[in-house]
């Protein structure tokens, strides 16, 4: 089992959600997060002065899935979250040792 952690633009959440639904991926945890990448933020101007905003709001999607589904999910996220501009985000994939559904006590793939 794998955990996919995708950090995307907040305005892309709906599109990513819909694309994942189409390939049968329903479960996810979504958080509002803040952070920065290589571009070090954006510039905003208030009353004639520039301010660098270097911690930007992003959306984090966490999905735990079977190993066989990982590539499809990753592709769906890339296709829908990509604008081509700096700040599109990143996807991290890591291994998950065990998953347990609290309601039934099921474990492993069955619990996903």
């Amino acid at each position, binding site marked *: 089992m794998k955990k996919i952690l995708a950090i995307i633009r907040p305005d892309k959440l709906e599109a990513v959600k819909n694309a994942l639904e189409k390939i049968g991926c329903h479960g996810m945890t979504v958080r509002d997060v803040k952070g920065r990448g290589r571009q070090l933020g954006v510039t*905003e*101007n*208030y*009353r*004639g*002065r*520039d*301010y660098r*905003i270097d911690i930007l709001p992003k959306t984090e999607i966490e999905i735990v899935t079977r190993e066989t589904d990982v590539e499809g999910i990753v592709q769906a996220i890339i296709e829908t979250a990509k604008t081509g501009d700096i700040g599109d985000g990143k996807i991290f994939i890591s291994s998950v040792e065990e998953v347990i559904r609290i309601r039934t006590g099921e474990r492993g793939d069955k619990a996903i």
Partner: protein
Amino acid sequence: MILDSGDTAWMLISTALVILMTIPGVALFYGGLIRKENVLNTMLLSFVTFAIVSVLWFIYGYDLTFGADMWGVIGSITNPVFNGVLESKSLATLAPTIPTGLYAIFQMTFAAITVALISGAVVERMKFSAWLAFVPVWLTLVYVPVAHWMWGGGFLAQMGALDFAGGIVVHLTSGIAALALVLVLGARKDIRLLPHHLGYSVMGAGLLWFGWFGFNAGSALSAGNLAVSAMIVTNTSAAVGMIAWMLMDKLKTGKPTLLGALSGAIAGLASITPAAGYVNVTAAIIIGFFASIFAYNAVSWLKPRLGYDDALDVFGIHGICGITGAVAIGIFANPLINSVTTGGILFGNFNLLGVQLLAVAVVAVYSFVLTVVIAKIIDKIIGLRVTDEHEVQGLDVNLHEESGYRLS
């Protein structure tokens, strides 16, 4: 004279309009411009200021400002706690067609907004208790005397200085006090202006623009031609100020900004305030245009170079525009608009400009020095600044045990 119900009706409405400017106008305008962790504290500063001034004004403030003149410096307390004034149903000496009580509460709203304006400079780091101490002391030692000098028959009025609705009394005193207070208080750890909710500021600025008709047209103290004239030049100056700031934004950064538009409108309103009852539309266009450009440069060029932390630019906008309008009277005052003046430079009268400059200088120095002294004393006794930890975490939770946003 007898009571004029038309004048009285207009002044009741004007008074309510000026109340709307502070609560919720200034509260919303300022509240949107700060970090979200300080929104409640910022709004409360305006609200509580209005409450404190509302009480003190009738205990002694009105009498000290408008009571019988003593040596050109201060009025005298003849009716403490407004005793007997309401009972006597007398008409106001300075506005003989409306009740004294109505004139007094109209003037109270000016005192309240003046002190509330200062709060914009010190938000995000001043102790609430220190602000509660500052309000009554500053009202008594700075606002009341200056209002007496200009409006209550004091020495500046006797010299012929003009201030129709408070360019000197309201905007200059508060703007200079803001500068003095932040110099004693010190800069925030993060001195950026990062508005958390510009929508609030749009509503606040809209209410200010709307309420300003009570402020300026109400200062005619009657429902007649002068009120109409003041209303038109007020609106014109605000509109020109807004457009001028957007023009500056476009020239300097390539994009017009909403906060710039709001700031320009406030600059136009503040600058026309002292002149509203003395000038025509052409003058209002010139005043609003130049005041906006001066204010733009004060906040975007002067402030970063001098390094003081006037958080919401009270000095940069109100102070600079108060001076601009007060001086402009000396140029544009028009006896055809208001017969109390023989006119400014454009009418061949050079004396008025000198008097206006003197009034601006005297009031600026007085407000600055007194505010520094008051701030230093409060700092010694109870301290002006919150702790570093409270400043970083925000004042709402730490000083009031409330938070403005609990969205889940």
